[in-house]
């Protein structure tokens, strides 16, 4: 049984101009000790689906799913207090902007200690000892002296390390990292990614890495799930995804990378991600897809696992041996 098993998750937001669907029938599965990467452009619903799992969405959000199971527990029907005992303990999350996710009014030591007090009920002296251990684990030099430091006294990389220490405080089974290095410089990004992957291996945690950077995906992930406009369009092991992407969107995205370009002209994807009012009736990628045919405007089928569960009528990079489910209209 997978540690995290979400199927058919849909998240809609009430807006002044009607319902906006941010996540559309998405499945997410992640096993113990695995690194799953969710990749997609802005607005593809990658963060929202994780926030829905954590219960961090505002009341305007409408969440529906066939199944949201974490560690054998149904997270849909769980009450608020029981959820508080899981979130931050068994699953923890770190965010994109380390500078703004720490509370500026409290010291680093206090903020990490809070987790230890709430979830583990440690006393003051043990908390202090454990906090120092944690700071050491995430590679912060001179941890004793950092306990009384306020977040504004730390650099971006250091703040992210503190966030990681806080997330790891209660030994989570699942760590969700939402664009953890986007706001950081490349040399610091390399340090933080190395740290995350190292800790994941040591503790045998599951790690869900949300990112838009294909380079980060290639270097850290084991399995990759590609999101487009709220839908999961493809899921493959990292090596296969980069060698043989089956969805035209993944394929186009990979060839738009400057480092893969052969000429001066980059192969770009025309148009933009559909918004609230111009959502296509059939395949969401059809208006921008170079393989789209009439049938794609009516509906789209999901291919089987061998083809990366691609949500496409005409998947690309299909060898002769593979058989493609025929596209059905409507």
């Amino acid at each position, binding site marked *: 049984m997978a540690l995290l098993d979400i199927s058919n998750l849909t998240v809609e937001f009430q807006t002044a101009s009607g319902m906006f669907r941010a996540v559309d029938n998405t499945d997410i599965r992640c096993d113990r000790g695995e690194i799953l990467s969710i990749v997609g452009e802005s607005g593809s619903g990658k963060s929202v689906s994780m926030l829905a799992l954590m219960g961090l969405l505002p009341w305007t959000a409408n969440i529906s799913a066939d199944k949201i199971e974490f560690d054998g527990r149904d997270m849909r029907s769980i009450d608020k207090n029981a959820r508080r005992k899981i979130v931050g303990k068994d699953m923890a999350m770190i965010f994109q902007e380390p500078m703004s996710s720490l509370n500026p009014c409290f010291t680093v030591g206090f903020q990490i200690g809070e987790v230890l007090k709430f979830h583990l009920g440690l006393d003051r002296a043990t908390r202090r000892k454990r906090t120092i251990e944690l700071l050491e684990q995430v590679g912060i030099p001179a941890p004793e002296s950092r306990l009384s430091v306020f977040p504004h006294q730390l650099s971006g990389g250091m703040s992210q390390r503190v966030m990681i220490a806080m997330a790891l405080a209660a030994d989570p089974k699942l760590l969700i990292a939402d664009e953890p290095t986007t706001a950081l410089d490349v*040399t610091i990004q390399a340090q933080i990614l*190395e740290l995350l992957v190292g800790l994941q291996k040591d503790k045998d945690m599951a790690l869900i890495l949300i990112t838009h950077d*294909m380079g980060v995906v*290639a270097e850290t992930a084991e399995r990759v799930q590609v999101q487009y406009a709220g839908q999961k369009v493809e899921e493959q092991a990292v090596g296969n995804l*980069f060698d043989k992407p089956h969805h035209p969107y993944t394929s186009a*995205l990979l060839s738009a990378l*400057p480092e893969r*370009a052969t000429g001066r002209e980059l192969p770009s*994807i025309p148009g933009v991600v559909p918004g609230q009012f111009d959502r296509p009736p059939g395949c969401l990628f059809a208006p921008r897809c170079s393989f789209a045919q009439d049938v794609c405007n009516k509906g789209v089928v999901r291919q089987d696992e061998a083809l990366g569960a691609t949500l496409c009528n005409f998947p690309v990079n299909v060898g002769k041996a593979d058989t493609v489910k025929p596209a059905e209209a409507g």
Partner: protein
Amino acid sequence: MTASPLISASNLGRFYSVSGGMFAPSGTVKALDGASFTLEEGKTLAVVGESGCGKSTLARLVSLIEEPTAGELLFEGEPASAQVPEHRKLVQIVFQNPYGSLNPRHKIGTILEEPLRLNSDLSRAECRKRADEIMERVGLRPEHYDRYPHMFSGGQRQRIAIARALMVNPRVLVLDEPVSALDLSIQAQVLNILAELQEEFNLAYLFISHDLSVVKHISDEVMVMYLGKVVEAGAAKTVFDNPKHPYTQALLSATPVADPHRKKKRIMLQGELPSPLNPPAGCAFNPRCRNAIEKCRAEAPALVFDEKTELACFNPTPL
């Protein structure tokens, strides 16, 4: 004057003095220290480095937003000055964040025509005509003329910002991280437009970026900066294929490559960028450098010509 390059800078520097507060002594931040380069017509010079290395300060100096406190900046052999109208028209800038650089209360038409109203005496109809031309050129539709910035996506806004920069027929565009706020599929569209425009108008680009894969794709020459100083400069291909400075090597190896089968051989940089208020003695990079020798801690290396590239290092090693 045909012999002078479009832009040449020698020992360009910008120092800021900071007051230290009631008890602390005041200090000087050398945001940019001794940068020398030339920019030719139709070429792209890329400036790369991490935050705080002075690349945006350089952009502000070249686009005449600020004046240098040291060194000399020449436009076609003449000292550059914001007082000379021709100089202001020669260089235009495109900023990183297209959400912050367009006035939300102005229509696109007004935004585009403003540079012309300030810098030329064209009539309203002529301004409108020019705006329509440029909008078409960057891939915006005529009906966008009467819309407000909030109605556009990030990629379209960046096109508007590029269009605005092109209104006065500049010969140099300073591009300060023009694609780093954009999604990958949109990034390729904007890079393609930039390449087409460069060919069509023979523009020179000063391309500021931290994304090395973009820089590798677009630039002819590259300048790597660290803590306000140029550490390595030369033809892009030479620098990327055979980086000599330990910082360039670390930067290249830290950049994630979208190839899961590639064997990782990463040079991990220890620590972080030192405070520019209190830079380390000697070479600014020495506390994080794996090649540092005694001399590096005592004196700062000068940028000298080394085979094909310029290099500021006492102890370079091939990768």
